[in-house]
């Protein structure tokens, strides 16, 4: 009998363990555990908030630890429990925790738009905080990384952008004038051809890695209509055909590295910075991290925005990291205090001065140590352009449509189609792209 009881006890323990692993219904748990947090606060003990972050070139673990120490020194009632996760595993862990409705941190990067429904709406906190003014941020980054469906789901930490870096030594050697900020896509191909030199294994300029980024938008091209209903006339419209034709001309010029060259000789996942620094690529589309590497390496370079197309608005591929409070937090007030300090002027200034962050607050960015340098000013000017993200965030199905239309891109890269076939090739992928758009729109609730 006793042994039977032991077996039953074991079985019940297993069931309890399993039950413990299942998610509590969303919204119930914070309310149920709220008193614990209040008790701690009432007892005068510091409230501990969990913060998940990553280690990056812009802010190392040590720098972030020092930042937390500075925050805690000025806020003795809040203790920040910092967890540094590997960047590659951060998304999986966040998605799992948010999906389960438990175990998510009070404060974290919400860099995936799919997580925004799980972020706390910060509007009441912003309205109640007289020291917090949203207009201190770059408007473009506030619009793309803080506001979602008329709610403020986070604050934008830091800024990043793509631009063209050109090697002045190579330009001088080839006798080619430096590009100006007003250069065009045609100028890009002309310069790329003039700068390439097969004898020294040097390419002129790199090629875009995928369509419907800044240059496509500079041509006025969109993969589908603004109301997310129609592909025909957009993906295969005259603006899109012009952008693909520009790519075709660039590839056929022979002055740009092949996809194999970029994949193998470029730097994994980030662009051909090594080729650029080695002088084997005269113009490269890179970002602010690469720019700092070039400064450190003593490279003689300049910065210009991606080339424009006359008669169209100019765009930039730019980004910032949305930093948010989980809506299931037990300590929303303390989380807001930390978030608004970390992503506010004080925290971003600390990360700029002690790390490599470029703040998303212009008044802080102006205090950058090399702000008077030509390259820094050119970078700051790029940040003022209209962002591709503004369209992409409002149109989350662009990835699905681009995937359905991917064959045209590959065929141009492989030299499989002639220039005058671009229109018919784009026409041919419209039905599949429309199907992908319809499916995605339905899935996301219209």
């Amino acid at each position: 009998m006793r042994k039977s009881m032991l077996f039953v006890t074991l079985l019940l323990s297993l069931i309890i363990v399993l039950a413990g692993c299942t998610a509590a219904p969303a919204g119930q748990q914070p309310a149920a555990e709220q008193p614990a947090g209040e008790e701690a606060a009432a007892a005068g003990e510091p409230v501990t908030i969990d913060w998940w972050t990553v280690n990056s070139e812009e802010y190392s673990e040590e720098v972030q630890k020092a930042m937390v120490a500075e925050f805690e020194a000025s806020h003795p009632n809040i203790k920040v429990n910092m967890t540094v996760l590997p960047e590659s595993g951060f998304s999986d862990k966040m998605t799992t925790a948010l999906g389960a409705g438990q175990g998510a941190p009070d404060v974290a990067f919400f860099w995936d738009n799919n997580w925004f429904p799980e972020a706390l709406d910060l509007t009441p906190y912003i309205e109640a905080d007289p020291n917090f003014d949203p207009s201190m941020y770059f408007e473009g980054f506030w619009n793309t990384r803080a506001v979602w469906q008329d709610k403020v789901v986070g604050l934008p930490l830091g800024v990043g952008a793509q631009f063209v870096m050109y090697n002045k030594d190579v330009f001088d050697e080839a006798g080619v004038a430096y590009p100006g900020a007003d250069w065009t896509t045609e100028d890009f191909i002309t310069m790329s051809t003039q700068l390439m030199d097969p004898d020294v294994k040097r390419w002129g300029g790199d090629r875009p890695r995928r369509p419907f980024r800044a240059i496509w938008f500079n041509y006025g091209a969109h993969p589908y209509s603004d109301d997310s209903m129609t592909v025909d006339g957009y993906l295969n419209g005259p603006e899109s055909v012009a952008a693909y034709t520009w790519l075709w001309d660039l590839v056929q010029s022979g002055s740009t590295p092949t996809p194999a060259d970029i994949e193998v000789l470029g730097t994994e996942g980030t662009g051909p910075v090594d080729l650029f620094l080695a002088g084997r690529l005269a113009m490269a589309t890179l970002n602010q991290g690469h720019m700092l590497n070039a400064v450190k390496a003593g490279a003689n370079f300049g910065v210009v925005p991606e080339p424009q197309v006359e008669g169209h608005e100019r765009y930039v591929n730019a980004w910032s990291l949305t930093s948010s409070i989980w809506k299931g937090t037990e300590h929303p007030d303390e989380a807001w205090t930390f978030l608004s300090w970390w992503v506010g002027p004080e925290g971003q200034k600390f990360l700029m001065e002690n790390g490599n962050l470029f703040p998303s607050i212009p008044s802080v960015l102006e205090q950058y140590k090399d702000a008077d340098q030509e390259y820094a000013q050119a970078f700051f000017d790029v940040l003022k352009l209209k962002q591709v993200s503004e369209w992409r965030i409002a149109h989350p199905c662009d990835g699905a449509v681009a995937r359905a239309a991917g064959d045209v891109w590959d065929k141009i890269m492989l030299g499989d189609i002639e220039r005058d076939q671009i229109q018919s090739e784009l026409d041919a992928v419209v039905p599949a792209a429309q199907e992908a758009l319809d499916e995605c729109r339905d899935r996301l609730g219209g």
Partner: protein
Amino acid sequence: MFSTWREMSPRTRREAMEGYISIAPWLIGFLLFTLIPVLASVYYSFTQWSVTRPAEWIGFDNYTRMFTRDPLFWQALKVTFYYVLLSLPLKIIFGLGLALLLNLKIRGMNFYRTIFYIPAVISGVAVSLMWMWLLHPDTGVINALLAQIGIQGPAWFWDPQWALPSVALMNVWAVGGSAVIYLAGLQNIPPHLYEAAKIDGANMWRRFWRITLPLLTPILFFLLIVEMIDSFKVFTQAFVITKGGPLKATYFYLYYFYEEAFQNFNMGYASALAIILMLIILAATVVMNYLSKHWVYYESEQEKS
């Protein structure tokens, strides 16, 4: 045949209890990390679920979309079947060939065995990056060697015709793992069979065909199943090297699954994809198992009969 708990003697109960406790770690692991996730996948395959929003029951919609309105599903299935048909014979034949070589009685054989086994323990990502360098159309070692003998090598991963064979080829490099299993089988073959065959005048080819191969068929069958499952699950090479291209030539099933699940957060549809793959592998395994009675030779069964 089976007695109930009440009917058991105290000793039998104690032994049963010890048995349950012994298998409990595996059982708990199996329940938590295999059975429950599989059952959850079956459920979610009938829903539309983006992880952060509640799952919505949509019946068979994911499956009807898959079979009637999704060209990417058919492309991924076609590419994966082609890959299985191409890579499976290569892995089986080269694995066996390598094992036969490693079974020779020459000096330093342990060193060679270690060398050939090393690729099997290197991470797939590292191997993929290495092969990207080796097979680069202009600067890769392979094309440089081919150029030495007057052959202009292809663009390998960057050519739609060659991309899939390139992935299959690079997997042959890691046959050391299966060679070790073959080797264990080879060394289990009683030497007296070869001696008797030699006395009867059988040459090396006949000894291989009449003795080695029949006695290796259980191993061959095991590896066929394992390698087949492994081939259906090909992913890393597409993820690291080709991103499914060019022209979707390496758009493997699991790569498509990955895109749907972890890039589009379309977990319901991804669950349905996973279920279909599981059924395909299950069906292929059942067919192979059925056919095995015609060609797999089990010595123990022969002795019994």
